[in-house]
């Protein structure tokens, strides 16, 4: 009966694991709903500021902001947005793989890279593979606030302003739907702004410019700074929604797998039990015949 007992304990432990994964699935599901809401709430601001920056790109300011000037690339910076926790399928792994591919492409061109990272997973990853991490923020929690991101963003924009880096990329997961999250790499700086169609209509084709109060330089600085921050914030909340939905899917699969394992273990247990009963019966019958 030793085999049967072992199987029984094994079944128990798998059942416990299944309970945990099921609970995690439920938790992720409710968190995902809230994270998605936050993602949708952040969209209007991102759209409106994009429109403003689009208008700005068509205006003719006398001052050329460094964020809009394309320079020869000697160093690049990557802002990598990852999750704080694991158990969310291949979400972070896929993201890092995409990042590494892009970093390698730059390396081949002789361009060095540095990193600013959000989330524990990215911190651990860059520690393992090595690389110059200039700033990091983790433990963003389920409700990331813009304040938490500002420090790291500022480190990168300061590096760009001072000419240490010539291009900045944002690496994050794009939330397509609950089942799909796509790792994406977007260029943040210099700004690649395309003028919107509606702007052309409002300007009537004539060259125009804003009235800037107090002055163009400071205002452009503020507007473009806010634009960058909103892009990063959007990426962070989107990543948070991606994380929860990826976790939900992964935990659902884990629960199902645990169920399958329990079934096959149960079958093995029944067989072992049956075999031992048959053996005992045979022994008794054999014993009786010998007497």
């Amino acid at each position, binding site marked *: 009966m030793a085999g049967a007992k*072992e199987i029984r304990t094994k079944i128990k432990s798998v059942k416990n694991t299944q309970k945990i994964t099921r609970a995690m699935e439920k938790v992720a599901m409710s968190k995902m709903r809230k994270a998605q809401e*936050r993602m949708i*709430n*952040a969209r*209007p*601001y991102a759209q*409106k*500021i994009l*429109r*403003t920056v689009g*208008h*700005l790109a068509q*205006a003719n300011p006398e001052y050329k902001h460094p964020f809009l000037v394309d320079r020869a690339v000697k160093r690049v910076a990557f802002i990598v947005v990852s999750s704080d926790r694991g158990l969310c399928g291949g979400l972070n792994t896929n993201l890092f793989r995409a990042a590494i591919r892009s970093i390698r492409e730059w390396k081949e061109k002789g361009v060095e890279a540095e990193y*600013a*990272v959000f989330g*524990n997973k990215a*911190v*651990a990853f860059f*520690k393992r593979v090595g690389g110059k*991490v*200039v*700033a*990091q*923020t*983790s433990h963003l929690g389920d409700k990331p*606030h*813009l*304040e938490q991101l*500002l*420090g*790291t963003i*500022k*480190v990168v924009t*300061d590096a760009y302003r001072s000419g240490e880096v010539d291009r900045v990329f944002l690496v994050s997961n794009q939330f397509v739907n609950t089942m799909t999250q796509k790792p994406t790499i977007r260029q943040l700086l210099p700004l690649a702004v395309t003028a919107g169609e509606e702007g052309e209509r*409002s300007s009537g084709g004539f060259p*125009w*410019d*804003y*009235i*800037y*109060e*107090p002055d163009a330089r*400071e*205002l452009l600085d*503020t*507007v473009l700074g*806010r634009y960058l*921050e*909103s892009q990063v*914030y959007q990426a962070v909340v989107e990543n948070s929604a991606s994380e929860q939905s990826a976790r939900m899917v992964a935990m659902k699969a884990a629960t199902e797998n645990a169920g399958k394992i329990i079934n096959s273990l149960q079958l093995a247990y029944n067989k072992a039990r049956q075999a031992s009963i048959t053996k005992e019966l045979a022994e008794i019958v054999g014993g009786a015949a010998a007497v």
Partner: protein
Amino acid sequence: MSIHVDIVSAEGQIHTGEAKMVFAPAEMGEVGISPRHAPLLTRLKPGAVRVQTESGEELAFFVGGGILEVQPHLVTVLADTALRAKDVDEAAAAQAKQRAEEAMSNAKSEVDLARAQAELVQAAALMQFLDKIKKR
């Protein structure tokens, strides 16, 4: 004649609709914007943005600073949610940098500990498994 108003903050949409006139606390003093105003870009001070709707009703929204963009038929208020001050930003930047440096230099950081723990659990499980196989 009306002007479209959008008031948004990073954490959500606050107001959208048509208006007869909009008042906003610009940095250089309060401004009143009627339809067909010249394009204007300015920063906002903390204060109330007032929107006069077409029915003559007046709506007020508090903003803690932000940016005001005016196009002839469009007013956009990009409100700040975060408390903004130059020295606050500087301090946050210094902190983010410091965290990165500490993590790079300190081998016994939290992350490492978590990783080591995970590896330990894995190793222990493997040992148990090997023991079981040997016994058979």
